[in-house]
């Protein structure tokens, strides 16, 4: 095949050949009321240049004073990221010119950062197992101030002017630099997701990407797989959404691999991700060497974080996602996947724990929170905080499921109403007149009606042609508007089909033997299932059992009953080469199995519903006699044993009865 390879194929081949090496630099805004070096507000969205003062405007003579809370939050993050916090760190000036940096330098940290040598664990890959765990190193975490905001577009003179708002100037940032431990854009995505999750748990940042409180740059290089040394890297900027991060990295990885594969060289440069063109573009700055001329900031004293303070901050660190997940798995018996979903945010985890605690069923609570609640919130575009259903309300619904008031299916309808109207589960149940029917007599009455209304289906079921249990259950649920307790319906349906079979049997028996046996009531254990009586009112017990053939046997016998030849394969099967023996064996086993039970009162009758029709009565008679002969040799708790058969080519009666003992 000489087809030309598609771009995707080429990229896939390059992916096999080259391994990406990625490190991320993440800037997060620390949640403080005031800026890092002055008392101006950090509020987002205020009118431009209203949260500014001589310090953040860079006016001559103004002096910075460090915000203690910014340090505390950065230390908290550093400790949670397993960093070593340096007792002494130092601020430095990073010098460069840009209109949104009024001082001409940014106060940052350089050779003595606040914290170093950390790591976090990411889980890469999807799936219920939760993927593979991998530890990603964190090189450093340091404090710095943000610059102002340049607006390049949107004004009539934007073609020649840039507008500058300095409200952001001096907002506290933590820069978190990872080791080049990431080996794919997916891992980079997982790392950023995990980092964000931890920072949100800590409450040190709101990590809002739209508002710029979480920003990400990446260092990317590729190398032939197997090579130890890193390739030349580029820095990719402007990766300010999770969506762009992966796309931009994939683009850059592909670009570098193509350059190397074509025998070219990667130039060390800064590239900007352009969301419009979906490409990274080299910035013009590349011909200038970056020389920030860092030097210690003389206006600020070295930053000392004592052991005692560190300890004090460590005490404020909440249970982090990893620990919470483990606790959910061990304490609530959840799967890794469920635990991961439910610990995605502290709010969700808290919500879940309340539901689990109040409802007393952790797994049921997990399912309802994950499937119904999150599904409904998602569909309505609501956050958890906006949920119309409180944890208490949801727990209330789960209680109704647990005590059998409503079935799981009914509960979904109730939940929809609760979500739409904010009412309690009990209120909705009362309003709709919903109540699961668990009363045996009530369900039995409906089951009887359904069976009586569908004689054809009953014949098919008893004839063994196909099971119509599903059909009958459906009819019962329909008749009760879904309110019947499903396990009860199944149980009573089985009993009532047996009862219907018994009625068929006695109708035939009365015809042939001029008796007048009639149904009296259901027995209650250890009585037999059914109680019948004769004309004089003398009661006797009746048990009904049904026999089944396996699928292959059934098909063969059906074909035979309809005068079709069995296929050669079937004929060679030892099991059913003698169809009469199959019938006999099955029938005999059914009687013997039933004979194990002990019943109160006089020995009852046993009726075996034999579900596969024979051609005619003489054939059935033969088998019945043969089984009867064998039964004579065994002890039986039954007064009489009968078989009930559907006979296919008898004109007058569909069912025929045969006495076995």
């Amino acid at each position, binding site marked *: 095949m000489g087809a030309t390879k598609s771009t995707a194929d080429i990229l896939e081949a390059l992916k096999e050949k080259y391994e990406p090496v990625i490190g991320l630099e993440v800037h997060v805004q620390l949640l403080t009321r005031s800026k890092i070096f002055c008392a101006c507000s950090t509020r987002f969205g205020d009118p431009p240049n209203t949260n*500014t003062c001589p310090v953040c405007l860079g006016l001559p003579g103004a002096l910075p*004073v460090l*915000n203690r809370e910014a340090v505390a939050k950065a230390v908290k993050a550093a400790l949670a990221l397993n960093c070593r916090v340096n007792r002494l760190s130092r601020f430095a000036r990073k010098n460069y010119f840009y*209109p949104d940096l009024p001082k001409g330098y940014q106060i940052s940290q350089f050779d003595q950062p606040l914290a170093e040598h950390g790591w976090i664990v990411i889980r890469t890959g999807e799936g219920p197992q939760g993927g593979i765990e991998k530890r990603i190193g964190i090189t450093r975490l340091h404090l710095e101030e943000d610059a102002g905001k340049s607006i390049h577009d949107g004004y009539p003179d934007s073609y020649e*002017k840039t507008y500058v708002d300095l409200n952001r100037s001096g907002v506290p940032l933590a820069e978190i630099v990872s080791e080049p431990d990431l080996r794919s854009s997916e891992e980079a995505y997982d790392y950023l997701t995990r980092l964000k999750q931890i920072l949100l748990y800590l409450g040190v940042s709101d990590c809002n990407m739209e508002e710029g409180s979480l920003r990400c740059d990446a260092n990317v290089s590729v190398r032939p797989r197997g090579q130890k040394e890193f390739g030349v890297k580029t820095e990719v900027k402007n990766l300010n959404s999770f969506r762009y991060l992966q796309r931009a990295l994939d683009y850059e990885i592909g670009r570098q691999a193509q350059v190397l594969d074509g025998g070219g060289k990667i130039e060390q440069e800064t590239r900007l991700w352009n969301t419009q063109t979906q490409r990274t573009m080299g910035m*013009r*700055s590349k011909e200038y060497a970056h020389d920030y001329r860092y030097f210690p*900031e003389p206006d600020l004293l070295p930053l*000392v974080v004592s052991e005692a303070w560190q300890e004090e901050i460590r005490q404020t660190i909440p249970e982090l996602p990893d620990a919470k997940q483990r606790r959910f798995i061990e304490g609530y018996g959840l799967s890794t996947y469920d635990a991961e979903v439910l610990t995605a945010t502290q709010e969700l985890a808290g919500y879940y724990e309340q539901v689990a605690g109040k409802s007393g069923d952790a797994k049921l609570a997990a399912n309802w929170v994950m499937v119904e609640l999150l599904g409904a919130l998602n569909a309505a575009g609501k956050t958890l905080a906006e949920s119309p259903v409180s944890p208490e309300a949801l727990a209330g619904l789960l209680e109704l499921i647990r005590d059998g008031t409503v079935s799981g299916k009914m509960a979904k309808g109730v939940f929809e109403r609760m979500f739409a109207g904010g009412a309690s589960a009990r209120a909705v149940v009362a309003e709709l007149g919903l109540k699961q029917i668990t009363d045996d007599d009530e369900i039995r009455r409906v089951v009887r009606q359904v069976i009586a209304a569908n004689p054809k289906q009953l014949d098919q079921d008893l004839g063994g042609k196909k099971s119509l249990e599903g059909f009958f259950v459906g009819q019962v649920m329909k008749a009760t508007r879904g309110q019947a307790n499903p396990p009860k319906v199944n149980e009573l349906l089985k009993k009532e089909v047996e009862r219907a079979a018994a009625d068929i049997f006695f109708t035939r028996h009365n015809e042939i033997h001029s008796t007048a046996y009639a149904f009296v009531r259901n027995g209650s254990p250890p009585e037999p299932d059914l109680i019948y009586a004769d004309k004089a009112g003398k009661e006797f017990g009746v048990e009904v059992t049904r026999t089944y053939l396996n699928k292959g046997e059934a098909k063969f016998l059906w074909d035979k009953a309809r005068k079709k030849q069995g296929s050669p394969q079937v004929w060679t099967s030892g099991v059913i080469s003698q169809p009469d023996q199959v019938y006999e064996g099955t029938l005999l086993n059914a009687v013997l199995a039933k004979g194990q039970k002990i019943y109160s009162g006089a020995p009852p009758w046993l009726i075996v519903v034999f579900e596969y029709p024979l051609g005619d009565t003489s054939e059935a008679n033969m088998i019945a006699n043969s089984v009867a002969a064998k039964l004579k040799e065994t002890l039986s708790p039954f007064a009489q044993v009968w078989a009930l058969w559907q006979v296919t080519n008898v004109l007058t009666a569909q069912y025929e009865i045969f006495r076995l003992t």
Partner: protein
Amino acid sequence: MRITEKDVLYVAALGNLELDAAETARFVADLDSILSYVEKLNELDTSAVEPMAQVLYDAPETLTWRDDHERPGFPQEKSLANAPERGAGQFKVAKVIER
């Protein structure tokens, strides 16, 4: 001479300064004589002394920070008082060319 013309032009470029030939020559001489003077300090053995970037090195921790209280900033009008050009409540500068 330790300072070269190249050094001066490099530093000037980083500082966004345009120097003509005469100025360049003058800065070469000036910077060189300043550095030569400072060079004298190297005659002292400071290998056992920690470099000091800030005075008050041994200050108690509490001297180095403030609590996180906010205070109203300048009114916009005042913030922009020194702006050579302004619009929409912002500083207006010549179109920024990334470099």
